[in-house]
């Protein structure tokens, strides 16, 4: 099986060996050339000195001199040999003139047997006057182990490197494989329909964790979209069935009873109204689903909610007058959020519509936008109606939930869930509070940072300014 870990390890091992060789080659070169050259030079100087002794003092004195030197020195430290023209040894520490030395002067390396041991000799041959020959040399075989050790060391280094590389590759491969295996299993579980599964990802982890984190965020989005679709199909199944059944029975009854034209047209008009009602529910559901997916966020712009609220109040004002409800907008200055003005208008419209329904005659509905202590924007609609009992509050924003008090008034029961969906889409939430008496419905939405609202007032406390204005 091909594995990227193996390929990578092989590459690194090869690279390491190349590096080792690059390190060893100059060393070897220095050893071979510099040291050997140096040695040959020393031998040549020695040889020149001895030649000078020969020229000054003659053969006999030279022989004595050599014997004295050999006697003084460490055995085999220096090889010296003086030979007569027939190459018979006269003095020195070699038993015989080595056979394989060429006839001319020069530096030679020969292999020979010295005192029963194999030896490698570096010899400088000098021809002396009168046909005499002088050999000055050195046994370099004692450096042999050093060279061996060098090569051995290099081999061991390469070996250790390769082994470590291979083992490392196996370990890394195993570690990566086990993590990929986990990811694979999670992915397979997700493929089989368990969308709640997530890849293991540690915060601030390595590249694989970063990738897992990204994939998890993608899964989050997919799950949300999926949930949106499922919610719509659930809602359609549950809540469009009733009005459709009514419509069907109305038409069927019409077909069976065949009443007079007057009544038939009345029924047809009623049927068209039924269809419109179904369409309204349908559109509201689609809009909710669209918001659940969060895709609408792409169209967010900087929106001054105080303008949105003022316009919504202006829009509902005649309806309020007709119901003899006091509808008031309290202006606390501009307050900007990143949002969709149309959706916000619709949400606030729903809240105002609700409030007008429940405020009762001579009641009051107050609409305001203010900056909360935590810096977020509060868009609130408060009424003086009966409010919602605490027990019902958590369920009030559920789809198609209609409070006991609202059974008699028209509506499809999607108003508050739309408001909640809009608030959520804007990163906030819908809060239902007690207005003592009445209901205070407020959307808490993160606001955009803004400079001081009032000139001369420190921008550090805009929340306090808003609070003061509220009082």
């Amino acid at each position, binding site marked *: 099986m091909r594995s990227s870990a193996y390929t990578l390890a092989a590459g690194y091992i090869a690279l390491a060996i190349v590096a080792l060789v690059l390190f060893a080659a100059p060393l070897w070169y220095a050893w071979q050339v510099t040291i050997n050259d140096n040695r040959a030079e020393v031998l040549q100087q020695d040889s020149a000195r001895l030649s000078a002794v020969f020229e000054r003092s003659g053969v006999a004195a030279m022989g004595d001199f050599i014997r004295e030197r050999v006697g003084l020195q460490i055995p085999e430290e220096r090889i010296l040999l003086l030979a007569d023209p027939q190459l018979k040894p006269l003095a020195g520490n070699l038993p015989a003139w080595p056979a394989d030395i060429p006839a001319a002067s020069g530096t030679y390396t020969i292999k020979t047997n010295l005192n029963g041991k194999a030896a490698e000799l570096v010899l400088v041959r000098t021809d002396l006057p009168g046909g005499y020959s002088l050999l000055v040399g050195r046994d370099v075989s004692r450096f042999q182990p050093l060279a061996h050790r060098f090569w051995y060391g290099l081999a061991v280094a390469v070996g250790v490197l390769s082994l470590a590389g291979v083992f490392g590759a196996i370990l890394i491969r195993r570690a990566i494989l086990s993590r990929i295996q986990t990811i694979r299993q999670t992915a397979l579980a997700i493929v089989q329909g368990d969308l709640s599964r997530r890849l293991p990802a540690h915060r601030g982890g390595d590249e694989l964790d970063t990738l897992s984190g990204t994939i998890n965020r993608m899964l989050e989005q997919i799950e949300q979209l999926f949930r949106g679709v499922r919610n719509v199909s659930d809602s359609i199944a549950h809540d469009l069935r009733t009005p459709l059944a009514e419509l069907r029975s109305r038409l069927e009854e019409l077909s069976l009873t065949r009443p007079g034209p007057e009544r038939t047209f009345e029924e047809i*008009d009623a049927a068209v109204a039924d*269809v419109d009602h179904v*369409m*309204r529910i349908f*559109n509201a559901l*689609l*809009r909710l689903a*669209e918001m659940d997916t969060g895709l*609408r966020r792409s*169209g967010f712009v900087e929106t001054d909610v105080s303008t949105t609220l003022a*316009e919504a109040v*202006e*829009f*509902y004002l*005649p*309806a309020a007058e*007709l119901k003899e409800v006091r509808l008031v907008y309290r202006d606390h200055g501009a307050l900007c959020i990143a949002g969709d003005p*149309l959706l916000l*208008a*619709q949400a606030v*419209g*729903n809240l105002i*519509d609700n409030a007008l329904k429940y405020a009762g005659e001579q009641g009051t509905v107050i609409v305001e936008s203010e900056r909360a202590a935590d810096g977020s924007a509060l868009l609130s609609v408060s009424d003086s109606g009966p409010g919602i009992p605490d027990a019902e509050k958590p369920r009030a924003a559920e789809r198609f939930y209609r409070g006991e008090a609202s059974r008699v008034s028209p*509506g*499809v029961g999607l*108003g508050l869930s739309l408001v909640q969906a809009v608030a959520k889409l804007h990163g906030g939430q819908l809060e239902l509070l007690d207005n003592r008496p009445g209901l205070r419905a407020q959307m808490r939405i993160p606001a955009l940072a803004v400079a001081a609202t009032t000139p001369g007032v420190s921008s550090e406390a805009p929340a306090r300014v808003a609070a003061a204005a509220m009082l």
Partner: protein
Amino acid sequence: MKLLLVEDNERVSQFVLKGLAEAGHTADHADNGRDGLFLAASEPYDVIVMDRMLPGGIDGLGIIAALRKAGKQTPILILSALTDVDERIRGLKSGGDDYLTKPFAFGELLARVDALTRRSQGSTGITTLEVGDLRIDLLSRRATRAARTITLQPREFKLLEYLMRHADQVVTRTMLLENVWDYHFDPQTNVVDVHVSKLRQKIDTASERPLLRTVRNAGYMLTAQE
């Protein structure tokens, strides 16, 4: 008035063609994109009603883009099953003049078609509008009926201006919502009716001949005709 309907659904086409004929319009029909583009490019129409999704290799938006590129300025009403606000914006950006979501009431379609023809006749440079003895001055924002001055809130003035620009035409509640308040959603209440009746109280007093009429199952019409 001569119209072109480009719509592939046979039932919807029959319904619309019949309605248009009853309203006194003549209409050609194409049931695919290719024929639609051919007719739209070769015949002079007053308004084109265009479905977005069409068979025949080219969809509604494609046809509109092609027509606009060729310099044809015929007003176009887009029909679409896509309710999304973004889709609406896309439709209008591609060169459509109005956008109507399916399913629709025929009255709504007819009112919008009428509004589009009026728009194409051009109303630039006009500074006063008159319907009977009702008169508004767009520069001074003043409204009068005969010798009586009518005091109007800014939004009421905008509402009256829209009704007067479309005098003798049916204007639906949705059209008012979209054009006077710029609200492209269904507020699910009769608030528009309340606004209109408030306006009516101001322009039609008991002694005067009523100008602002309610058209059943459709909307409103401002007219001086009997």
